[in-house]
């Protein structure tokens, strides 16, 4: 290895920016496909599909490795990017009194650092709202369903007609795909009985104290409530409209960042060829529009369906 350094030289930093940027672009595709389930599927089926998907993403070893590469990429992309931006500012201590940069370069290309900083703020709040609750604080409740049925408790001695009471059965979705009854409640008297103890995500038999199953967290409802939806219960966010608007604005910012960033990554890695430049530009700009647009419609649709 020469003294050039794979971290210190200006070109090496650009390689890191390009590689982490391209990885994050592929991450966006996966994240989008997962999130689209929030609006393509509805009702209990949609809720279950999303929560099982979220459980899979949190427990598959291959996905876990990819998650760590993603955290690294976000941090490296942000840190190196900010460092480069500071260096670039220093390279021109005195600005022009009169400058017309619009005559020779595109607007997004000149504001990558500012766009990136806004995206970083978005990522931090986005992770605090969902990722933190699911993975670190573990405050996301389990996925429960409640069914109220008329349960026969005897027969009328005079008429022989069945006597029923309304009983609500609360079941938890488990990681092996079944619903496990965890509590029963008499609707009239309000008396309830726990059938299974829950400890974190663990479902424990009341009598034997043995592990019965593991529950799946209900991230779906957290997301739905966050963007103003209450069909699955929970408390809707009073600031849902603000959250939706900020989310949509962030996706616009992401669009501008990708508009320049996608093609720029190829150039930084030296992948510039007359035969393919047109294709790279087309794919990059199409990606920059389509992906943030699809991300943005998710909270909008959730809000409109509230």
């Amino acid at each position, binding site marked *: 290895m*020469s*003294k*050039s350094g*794979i971290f210190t*030289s*200006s*070109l*090496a*930093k*650009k*390689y890191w920016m390009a590689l982490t940027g391209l990885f994050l672009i592929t991450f966006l595709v996966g994240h989008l496909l997962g999130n689209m389930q929030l609006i393509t599927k509805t009702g209990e089926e949609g809720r279950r599909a999303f929560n099982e998907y979220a459980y899979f993403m949190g427990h598959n070893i291959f996905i876990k490795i990819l998650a760590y590469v993603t955290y690294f990429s976000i941090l490296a992309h942000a840190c190196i990017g900010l460092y*480069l931006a500071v*260096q*670039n500012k*220093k*390279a*021109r*201590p*005195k*600005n*022009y*009194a*009169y*400058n*017309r*940069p619009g*005559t*020779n*370069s*595109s607007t997004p*290309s*000149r504001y*990558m650092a500012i766009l990136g900083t806004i995206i970083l703020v978005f990522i931090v709040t986005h992770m605090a709202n969902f990722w933190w609750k699911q993975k670190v604080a573990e405050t996301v409740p389990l996925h429960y369903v409640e069914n109220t049925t008329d349960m026969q408790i005897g027969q009328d001695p005079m008429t022989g007609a069945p006597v029923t009471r309304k009983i609500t059965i609360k079941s938890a979705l488990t990681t092996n795909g079944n619903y496990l009854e965890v509590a029963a409640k008499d609707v009239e008297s309000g008396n309830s009985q726990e059938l299974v103890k829950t400890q974190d995500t663990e479902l424990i038999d009341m009598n034997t104290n043995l592990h019965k199953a593991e529950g799946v967290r209900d991230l779906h409802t957290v997301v739905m409530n966050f963007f103003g939806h209450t069909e699955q219960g929970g408390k809707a966010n009073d600031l849902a409209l603000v959250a939706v608007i900020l989310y949509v604005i962030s996706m616009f910012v992401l669009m501008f960042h990708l508009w*320049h960033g996608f*093609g*720029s990554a190829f*150039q*930084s*890695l*030296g*992948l*510039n060829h*007359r035969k393919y430049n047109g294709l790279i530009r087309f794919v990059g700009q199409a990606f920059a529009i389509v992906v943030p647009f699809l991300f943005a419609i998710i909270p909008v649709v959730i809000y409109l369906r509230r």
Partner: protein
Amino acid sequence: MASKTININLKIWRQKNANSKGSMETYKLDNVSTDSSFLEMLDQLNEQLVNERKEPIAFDHDCREGICGMCSLYINGEAHGPDRAVTTCQLHMRKFKDGETIYVEPWRAKAFPVIKDLVVDRSAFDRIQQAGGFVSVNTSGRTMDANAIPIGKAEADKAFEAATCIGCGACVASCKNASAMLFVSAKVSQLALLPQGQVEAQQRVLNMVKQMDEEGFGNCTNTGACAVECPKEISLENIARMNREYLKAMVSAE
């Protein structure tokens, strides 16, 4: 040919020496022929200043036919002014309107300190060249004829296109990061594309980039402003080629 004249207002950067602060000064110049070049217009202004017993404006110029790379000037917010693929000496006053206010500033970059008025020190480019922008040739008397090695026309043309860089610094001046990537990549490319340049290819790109970084130029963000403002229309392909060359050298040079 009917010659037309215009009257213009000029806002020009004046700075006594490298250590003084400097400021934009306003001048009025009448009867400027639209056929005169921008530098001839400055000559006319300097004549006026000398007649008024004022200090003339210092600016760089040499061949005045677009090939030496001496003339610089950031005119109306663009390197070498609003025209494309020209140096300031090839920019004509017919590109400006009667009564227009024209801003004239020196190249702005940490690596190009102002010496006086519109003159900047571009020796950073020389030091980058000295770091590796050459091929070592044995001159003991048994020098090989350069044309003895056959080179494909397409490759030769690409090398020549890169070699047309006159080192004026418009790329640095135009870049929002004051990056010298287009210049350095042209100098790397003109040799990397030819067989004579292969021998020292790896060390060349490593040393030239190292020197570029040490001079305090900014980093490339691929805005493409440099290639648009370059008087010799050096292509961004050269920057990509340098990125490839550097990547290869970084991972394999000993």
